[in-house]
């Protein structure tokens, strides 16, 4: 009955419905960009625009991967580098989180710590490399600490601003129901600050790879950076390309990890992002 056009000039409202997309469709669209880049690279190498002394062709790079994987150089370097950046990241995240909660949630912490941390934050961590060499020598400690220092600050800034943005009305209500300070931080403040915490994690993960490169380019005897400096001295552009690709893949993996965490850690977020 409602389908007939009994009322002239009237139209049926058509809500714009969001079509559910299949996972494969969305994954394909996501992969289009990188694939296009690869094709471009391959075409440039094949037509001779890109000569091997500038950058090796995809085929050669693939062969280099096989070679490095076969003689165990790549797995060894990966293990070393990932251990370094992982440990440094863990220390940096923990420090940033604790400092951020302290300054974000307590007034005393804010007054006591914030200005000094903000001062330290402006120091480029690269300028600390020589100092760390003097302090800790040429060993793992210096490298891990450099990564830890680099990753502490983004995490600190995101955490403290996220914690500061907690709804004071919610905190007051929870206090009136007798919730203690630590329970408040654990059950209300941190879940509320999770979006900022994950943004901080994203920044820190990126920085941990950058700091890893900086740490490994200097006086390293193992790791991806060492592999790179060796390839540089023998002008092996294929190995250089492999190393750059590995760094890129590390960044991509970090991003995917954060995306996954966002979905797993915040199940209460509706599609509209509304909260009550």
């Amino acid at each position: 009955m409602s389908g007939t056009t009994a009322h002239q000039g009237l139209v049926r409202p058509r809500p714009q419905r969001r079509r559910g997309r299949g996972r494969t469709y969305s994954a394909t669209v996501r992969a289009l960009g990188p694939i296009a880049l690869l094709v471009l690279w391959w075409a440039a190498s094949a037509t001779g625009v890109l000569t091997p002394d500038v950058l090796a062709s995809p085929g050669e790079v693939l062969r280099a991967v096989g070679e490095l994987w076969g003689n165990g150089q790549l797995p060894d370097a990966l293990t070393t580098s990932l251990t370094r950046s992982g440990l440094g990241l863990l220390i940096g995240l923990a420090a940033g989180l604790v400092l951020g909660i302290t300054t974000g949630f307590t007034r005393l912490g804010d007054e006591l710590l914030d200005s000094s941390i903000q001062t330290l934050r402006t120091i480029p961590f690269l300028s600390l490399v020589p100092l760390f060499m003097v302090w800790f020598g040429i060993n793992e400690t210096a490298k891990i600490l450099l990564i830890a220092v680099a990753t502490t600050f983004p995490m600190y800034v995101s955490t403290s601003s996220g914690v500061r943005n907690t709804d004071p009305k919610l905190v007051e209500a929870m206090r009136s129901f007798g919730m203690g300070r630590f329970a408040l931080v654990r059950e209300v403040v941190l879940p509320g600050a999770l979006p900022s915490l994950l943004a901080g994690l994203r920044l820190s993960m990126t920085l941990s790879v950058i700091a890893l490169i900086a740490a490994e380019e200097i006086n390293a005897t193992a790791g991806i950076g060492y592999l790179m400096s060796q390839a540089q001295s023998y002008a092996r552009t294929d190995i250089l390309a492999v190393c750059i690709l590995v760094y890129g893949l590390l960044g991509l993996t970090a991003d995917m990890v954060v995306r996954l965490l966002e979905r797993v850690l915040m199940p209460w977020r509706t599609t509209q992002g509304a909260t009550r």
Partner: protein
Amino acid sequence: MTDPAPRPAVRVRELRRVFGDRAVLDGLRLDIARGEFVALLGASGSGKTTLLRILGALDGADGGEVLVPEARTVVFQEPRLVPSKKVLANVTVALPRGRSGHGLRALAEVGLERHADAWPATLSGGEAQRVALARALVREPELLLLDEPFAALDALTRLKMQDLVGELCRKHRPAVLLVTHDVDEAVRLADRVAVLRDGRLVTDEPVTVDRPRDPGDPAFGALRRRLLDDLGVATTPQPSTAPERTEVGVI
């Protein structure tokens, strides 16, 4: 003034609260007996919410004596649910572990036991406020503080919520202080109504209208007019021109 109850739940004497150089509460005196439902009316900024916040230990007093029971809970104007906790966890928030049974019973009382596993963001305004009510009742308060809990609800939901609150308060018998600016709501629910003006209670009298209270009852209308007068709202003799807000209760 009514006689101070033999076993009071709330005793306030000479209460003073100053903001800047303005005394919002000045020499205020209030008694609430155990199990008594008191509605506190007042214009915006008259200090009624301040009084409730002092009784709930959310705000400090500048002078006077305030005595309240240990077990007291607040229902705020907004639900104030923790978005990262499911409904049942919101009800049992800050309670010792192993109280989900109590929480489920409280949710059943407000008719939301089927939503125990839902996220707060998926609830409607009325449902969220019912969760806030369950969260207050599960603590078995001796004093229940209601800070305009129906103000953010639509008119129909508000009427249903008022009935629900009245029923649950009759069942659990806490002392209740309902802060509101809705005269009909106050007369419908309360055993006693008080009007706060110029820092003290200018009216404090028992509601003698027979239950169930019908806004059409002449006693209801007379009390409403008197209270509106006390609130400084001019009422003309004919009741049909009463302010629109108070007509909400008429269905």
